[in-house]
């Protein structure tokens, strides 16, 4: 008996060892499960330079970068790069690449591919400004990439983690750009399968993916279902696995459903009320402050975001490096609003127009709330709705008085938003407001070109305080990212930079 027990024990021990060795290997061999997303936007393009939220989540499953944002969104981790060193003057960055990475067409990743991809990203008209500091990219050997920056540039690693710096095969593997983006090749866990515009896009598992054992899923499909209620019913009825962006108003009903899980992910995102400083009344800082004080952020949060967001205190959203949670910002206070207005030339009140996107329930509700509180301090605000694409054109042409806008961070460093949203270099006249404060511009330059975190923190704290004092825009709400999925799904996670990786997700 004794000997038999021992034998059995040894047998089970051996079995356990064998199992631990075997499991990862066998998992890689057969990814299982077909996952279906339902979302309110149709996919548009695989070209990262043209990407907006409608496309970039899907791109990120196919393409990867040298670095990527960490789960908490506060830093970056090496991804296709293994490590890096920086020269003493801080201008030359040398990267070592992973040597086990293959593109989905089987060819290995080399430094030449990286050079090609980064050069293309820098030349891009859409997101090229992110690489503004990059002077040159060289590939001295197959696994070494050397980047020279024009000046000391703190956000470089964060920039490399941005979707715009996705790595593709050199010269698009011999295809033209147009051909390549119709059937893209990347190093990601999934490979493009089929796109039916206006209906759905499907990706299938990359069998030769470099992370062992991943992906777990056989395929992922994103279905375009415009109606909020239909998406909710599809999820409840099991025809979909993940609902992308369920409206905040549906969250309660989703949370009550037994087979549904709701994810409320902290977001590095912010909503703003933009002022056109070319309008005489809005060039008056007291008027802008008055309106900023009159934004009832708690009401907007309650009505529009079902209380799931947080009132903003800064131009920078929380979760971004150097976000100052102590920045006072401007909070709802009708007495202060009235006092600011009394200091302006418009003591007797004034008329303003708010431009919103027609049919956008969130903007319509926000507009109604704002109109009601502005009325109390003597500002008559009319609301003008335009079809969304027209609204964007009107905003960019600066033919509006006030409008509602927002921002989602793509990189963890605040530089992307500050350059784009405040400085003349961003090419947007400070987010189409015509704001231009030399002190702010200088502080942003200082933050970019200095690698000392203390100096950067001081500069960015100053910027946050100054733009709030100038009431360059009214900072309204930091909304969360909302997702809902069935309880068959595990491992789904969205980081504060609005990025998710389907290779970690399982179904069943």
């Amino acid at each position: 008996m004794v000997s038999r027990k021992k034998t059995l024990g040894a047998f089970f021990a051996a079995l356990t060892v064998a199992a631990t060795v075997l499991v990862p290997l066998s998992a890689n061999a057969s990814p299982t499960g077909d996952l279906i997303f339902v979302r309110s936007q149709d996919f548009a393009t695989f070209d990262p330079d043209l990407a907006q939220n409608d496309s970039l989540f899907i791109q990120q499953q196919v393409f990867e970068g040298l670095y990527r944002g960490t789960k908490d969104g506060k830093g970056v981790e090496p991804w296709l790069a293994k490590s890096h060193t920086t020269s003493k003057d801080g201008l030359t960055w040398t990267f070592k690449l992973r040597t086990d990475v293959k593109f989905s067409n089987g060819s290995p990743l080399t430094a030449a591919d990286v050079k090609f991809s980064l050069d293309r990203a820098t030349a891009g008209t859409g997101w090229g400004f992110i690489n503004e500091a990059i002077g040159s990219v060289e590939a001295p050997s197959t696994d070494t990439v050397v980047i020279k920056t024009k000046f000391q540039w703190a956000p470089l690693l964060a920039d490399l983690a941005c979707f715009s710096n996705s790595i593709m095969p050199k010269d698009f593997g011999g295809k033209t750009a147009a051909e390549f983006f119709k059937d893209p090749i990347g190093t990601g866990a999934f490979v493009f399968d089929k796109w039916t515009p206006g209906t759905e896009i499907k990706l299938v598992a990359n069998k030769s993916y470099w992370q062992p054992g991943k992906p777990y899923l056989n395929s992922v499909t994103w279905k375009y279902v415009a109606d909020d209620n239909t998406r909710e019913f599809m999820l409840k009825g099991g025809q979909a696995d993940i609902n992308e962006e369920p409206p905040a108003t549906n969250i309660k009903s989703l949370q009550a459903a037994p087979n549904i899980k709701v994810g409320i992910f902290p977001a590095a995102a912010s909503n703003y009320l933009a002022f056109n400083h070319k309008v005489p009344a809005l060039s008056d800082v007291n008027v802008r402050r008055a309106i900023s004080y009159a934004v009832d952020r708690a009401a907007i949060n309650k009505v529009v975001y079902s209380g799931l967001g947080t009132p903003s205190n800064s131009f920078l959203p929380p979760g971004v490096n150097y976000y100052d949670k102590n920045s006072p910002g401007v909070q709802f206070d009708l007495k202060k609003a009235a006092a600011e207005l009394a200091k302006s030339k418009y003591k007797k009140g004034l008329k303003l127009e708010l431009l919103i996107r027609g049919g956008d329930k969130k903007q319509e509700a926000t507009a109604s709330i704002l109109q009601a509180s502005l009325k109390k301090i003597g500002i008559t605000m009319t609301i003008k709705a335009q079809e969304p694409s027209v609204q964007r054109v009107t905003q960019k042409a600066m033919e509006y008085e006030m409008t509602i806008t927002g921002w989602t961070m793509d990189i963890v460093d605040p530089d992307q938003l500050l350059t784009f949203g405040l400085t003349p270099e961003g090419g947007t006249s400070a987010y189409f407001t015509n704001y231009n404060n030399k002190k702010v511009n200088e502080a942003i330059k200082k933050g970019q070109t200095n690698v000392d975190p203390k100096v950067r923190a001081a500069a960015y704290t100053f910027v946050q305080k100054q733009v709030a004092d100038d009431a360059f825009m009214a900072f309204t709400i930091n909304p969360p990212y909302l997702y809902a999925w069935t309880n068959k799904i595990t491992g789904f996670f969205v980081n504060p930079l609005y990025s998710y990786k389907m290779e970690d997700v399982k179904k069943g």
Partner: protein
Amino acid sequence: MKSSKTLYVGVGLLSALVLAAIFAPLITSFDPNEPDYVNTLLGPTSQHWLGTDPLGRDVFTRLIYGARIDLAIGLLAVVLPFIIGVSLGLLTGWRGGKTDSIIMRVVDTFIAFPFYVLAIALVFIFGPGIKSIIIAITLVGWVAYCRIVRANVLVAKEQDYIHAARLTGLPSSRILRRHMLPNVISQSIVFAMSDIVLSILAIVSLGYLGLGVPVPTAEWGSMIQEGQGYISEQWWLATLPGLMVVYVGFSLSLIGDGLVARLER
């Protein structure tokens, strides 16, 4: 007798709503557009008979004030097309020949043109609001009246009383005004009743698309749109304004039916 009843019931139902809209401030003490963030999304209570919307506004109040906008635009949007259509119909039917060919080809063009494409294009040009809606409906709406009147004129033209009027040497303008018009207009009036419903539907549709009367003004179309997000929890937010449209449509159809019988007697 039966037809009169239909007419009276229709007029009764519609007047009830019109009176409610006119005397809205006496019926309800709430402001239709003033938010109340404490009492949002309430169910029916003794204070808020039909509950409140996401901004805490009383739904009953908004339905009644919405009637002001929707009924007024509905009526207004029919007046101009009615006048234009009837006049052109008289002219084209009476003159015949080249005038008729030209006007009827224009009519065909307008009939072939999709209404909402035109309406949305106009909204782009003039911006959303009552003006754009009325222009859009007028541009398309006159066509139906023109065709109805023309058809009746073609028949009436050959009637003895018109021949008699012509033989006495009366000028065309007088024949058309005094002899033709009263005899050919009845069908247009009946059609106008259902046309008001179509206009209201157009206003509501544009409101639903966010291209109608700007928020926060109470209007049935934008109420349906605002309520749609809550359909799984508070279905009445979107359903009640829809039922208001049905109510108006029902009463106007009764009036139309009653008028047909009346005018044909």
